[in-house]
């Protein structure tokens, strides 16, 4: 719920969405430190523009889009980007099941063009149409990317998936 003053509203929005914004940035950058930097810079930009946001109900989408733009800006500036944060993967062992670790490895292997809509859908709770608007593409293209992302993940973590089962109707 957005509170009275613009500062309080922005602070509340940051606190409400910091986790999801960090995770989204992480799956874009695949690096925890870079993800935090991206979110911090994005929020600074967001903070400056916040008084101009007229639809406060859409703040979450707006913040996601700023994170995306900030990632692309940072990536363009730092041609060295592309490395996966091997150190950052240590956290995965702490709580993930063996299957979960396989899943996370599989996600790491996904191209960014597949991981990004997947993160927006699963973490952000956005529909294909909303993701299409955020990524400035068509809903059909998003559905295709999401389908391929899940197919790729299933191939990697569920080796038997993809084979047609007996009795399926087509």
């Amino acid at each position, binding site marked *: 719920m957005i509170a009275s*003053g*613009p*500062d309080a509203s*922005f*602070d509340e929005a*940051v*606190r409400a969405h*910091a*986790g999801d914004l*960090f*995770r989204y940035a*992480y*799956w874009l950058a695949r690096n*925890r430190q870079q993800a*935090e930097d991206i*979110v*911090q810079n994005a*929020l*600074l930009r967001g*903070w*400056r*523009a*916040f*008084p*101009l946001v*007229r639809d406060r109900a859409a703040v979450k989408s707006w913040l996601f889009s700023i994170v995306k733009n900030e990632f692309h800006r940072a990536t363009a500036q730092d041609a060295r980007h592309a490395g996966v944060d091997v150190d950052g993967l240590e*956290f*995965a062992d*702490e*709580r*993930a099941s063996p*299957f*979960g670790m396989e*899943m*996370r490895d*599989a*996600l790491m292997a996904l191209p960014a063009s597949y991981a990004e809509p*997947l*993160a927006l*859908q*699963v*973490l952000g709770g956005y*529909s*294909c149409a909303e993701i299409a608007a955020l990524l400035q593409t068509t809903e059909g293209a998003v*559905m295709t990317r*999401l*389908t391929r992302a*899940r*197919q790729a*993940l*299933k191939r990697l*973590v*569920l080796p038997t998936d993809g084979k047609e*089962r007996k*009795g*399926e*109707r*087509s």
Partner: protein
Amino acid sequence: MNCLDFRRILLSGDGETGAMREHRVACVFCSDLLKEHAAFEGELRSALEVPVPAGLADRLVESLPAASPAEEQRRNRRRFLAAAAVAAGAIGIGLYAWRGRDDPMALACIQFVMKDEAKSIMMGAMPRAEAARMLADSLPLERIESIGSIRHIAPCPFGEGTAYHVILMVPQDKVTLLIMPDTPMPARGRATHDGMYASVVPLRKGSVGIVGASAAVVDSVAGALRA
């Protein structure tokens, strides 16, 4: 719907539709597939939900500047206004002296269209109801809409105050209106510059600058707005 359609939509992750539900109830294979898929989605969510660094939200809030964004925006606006006033003044005086008959306010309106109109549009439009309320005493929206279609309306810094920037499509062309509820004009002023024509017209409260590429269209809009 068949099994292939069911699987295709399921993999897109957009949730189960009514048609999918109907198919699943009648298809034991897709019913099993949905159960497997739900387990897969759970693992997928867990894998995507990487741990967030401890104290991240607090750090992020603390990293924001101490001044409020509204205050910083006011500061930036004051700087912008000061710079715009100096620039508009210099341009206006220079052109006024050169041309002898151009109205400085009308010239400033042309300058706005040439330099700041795109920026104003990018800042986003205001809700119609709010615009109607703000302009009720100076130039009611219904009056504007009686002569054309409003494509954009938003407040913007102009001169020493705030103007309401309107992009209006009239049958002949596009014109820009700068409605200045707090800037009265004793009489109508006109200016031309760089192929553009502007006219500033007194209103019941404040004034309106009209800018277009054709003197005939601007004069026609000015006449209609005053009527």
